[in-house]
């Protein structure tokens, strides 16, 4: 059954912790993160880095939660560099100071990707559910001053898309080499808050045009990348470059997954790096093989020439919107479930209150899922 020989994985996403000082409305961590207990030790991570490098991984993304909340981040960075991995730190910047950043650089850190929520302080702090914007700006300036290459990432959505011009200007002023304007995609917390975040088509098109012009104007100075929301794309994105084709995600408790949202698909059993070797997980585990190749596909994907480009889109989105992880991603206009996406486009209700990604709301969600009626 597992006859498909997978290519080598090229990147490892290490979610070092679910702890985070922010509560962003679109956080990519699972809704039930609060049930997680012990985080992997530095030894567990070091072993995983070495196993990943031996498998062919060259790039490591240290993320969370907020990875700076791991006191052993320097030790982890050294361990990764010892395996010759390219190390990208994905951070809110909250808790960064010059001594810490200098130590990380000395340990082998290659690059920092800093998240900003908006160009406007009040709006940024509203989305983050915390007063963090000013500290982030200070962190960005510190990174640039220390000549560490910096990418700024803005998650964009209805509440901030009208300010992409200002965001790009801010990124240039802060000395970023690249700015990503990545539309919130509706998984987990963002799906819960979709009515607040869903952009209008006109808003998206305007923002995209501004980004395109800025990309041209800033060519050679700063790279500008805009990623459209799946619901407005017409065709699905090649999510993760295909399931189990290039990326391994390890969550804070050691579960190995093909993508950061994979745990939202019920019925999948995730192997744990505490008890299994990464090579075995990559090649043989049922979860990494679940959606490899094309045999699992249904129509219209199965006979579609696009399947080799988009791999049927996102499995987590198919599960969330079509209740079937093997279905065509409903973001595709050819999907029989595409109408769920179309009707969500008009979803501009602000009657609901937004749900921040906090341990308390996560515990509420867990309780509701466990209650007999829920």
């Amino acid at each position, binding site marked *: 059954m597992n006859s498909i020989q997978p290519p*080598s994985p090229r990147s490892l996403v290490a979610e070092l912790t679910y702890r985070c000082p922010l509560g962003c409305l679109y956080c990519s961590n699972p809704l039930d993160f609060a049930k997680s207990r012990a985080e992997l030790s530095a030894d567990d991570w070091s072993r995983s880095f070495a196993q990943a490098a031996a498998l*062919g991984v*060259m*790039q490591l993304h240290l993320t969370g939660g907020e990875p700076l909340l791991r006191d052993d981040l320097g030790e982890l960075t050294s361990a990764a560099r010892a395996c010759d991995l*390219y190390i990208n730190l994905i951070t809110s910047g909250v808790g960064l100071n010059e001594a810490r950043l200098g130590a990380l650089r000395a340990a082998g850190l*290659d*690059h920092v990707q800093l998240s900003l929520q908006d160009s406007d302080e009040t709006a940024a702090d509203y989305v983050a559910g915390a007063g963090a914007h000013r500290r982030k700006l200070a962190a960005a300036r510190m990174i640039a001053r220390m000549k560490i*290459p910096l990418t700024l990432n803005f998650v964009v959505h209805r509440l901030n898309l009208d300010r992409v011009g200002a965001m790009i200007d801010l990124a240039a002023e802060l000395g970023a*080499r690249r700015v990503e304007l990545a539309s919130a995609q509706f998984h987990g917390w963002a799906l819960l808050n979709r009515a607040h975040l869903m952009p209008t088509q006109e808003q998206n098109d305007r923002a995209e045009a501004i980004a395109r012009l800025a990309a041209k104007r800033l060519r050679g100075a700063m*790279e500008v990348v805009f990623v459209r929301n799946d619901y407005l794309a017409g065709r699905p994105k090649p999510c993760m470059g295909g399931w189990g084709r290039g990326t391994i995600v390890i969550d804070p408790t050691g579960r190995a997954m093909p993508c950061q949202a994979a745990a939202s698909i019920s019925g999948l059993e995730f192997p744990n790096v505490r008890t299994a070797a990464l090579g075995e997980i990559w090649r043989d585990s049922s979860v990494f093989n679940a959606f490899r190749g094309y045999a699992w596909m249904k129509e219209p994907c199965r006979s579609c020439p696009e399947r080799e480009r988009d791999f049927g889109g996102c499995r987590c989105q198919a599960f969330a919107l079509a209740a079937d992880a093997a279905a065509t991603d409903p973001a595709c206009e050819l999907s029989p479930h595409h109408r769920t996406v179309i009707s969500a486009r008009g979803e501009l209700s602000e009657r609901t209150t937004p749900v921040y990604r906090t341990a308390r709301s996560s515990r509420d969600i867990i309780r509701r899922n466990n209650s007999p009626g829920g």
Partner: protein
Amino acid sequence: MNSDAPGREWRPRLAAGVRLRVDPADGRERLLFPEAAMELNETAAAIVRLCDGRRSLAEIVRELAGRYGTADAIARETAEFLGAMRERRLVE
């Protein structure tokens, strides 16, 4: 002549945060930066290896000419490749 074309006296080097390393999977060299591990063909890898901030573009071309093609072809290819790389801020 395109005003963006690299000058012969430019001494290119890899930008901060960009690394060249051998991919153990196939023994080929790849350029690593946060978004990608870029595959390099033999000529591209040879060009990048010489981007040490000391050699000028003209010197790089001189070293490669003969090995990878005629001087004219190498001069054109090297300038094009490094110009595109500079645009992406991978070399400076």
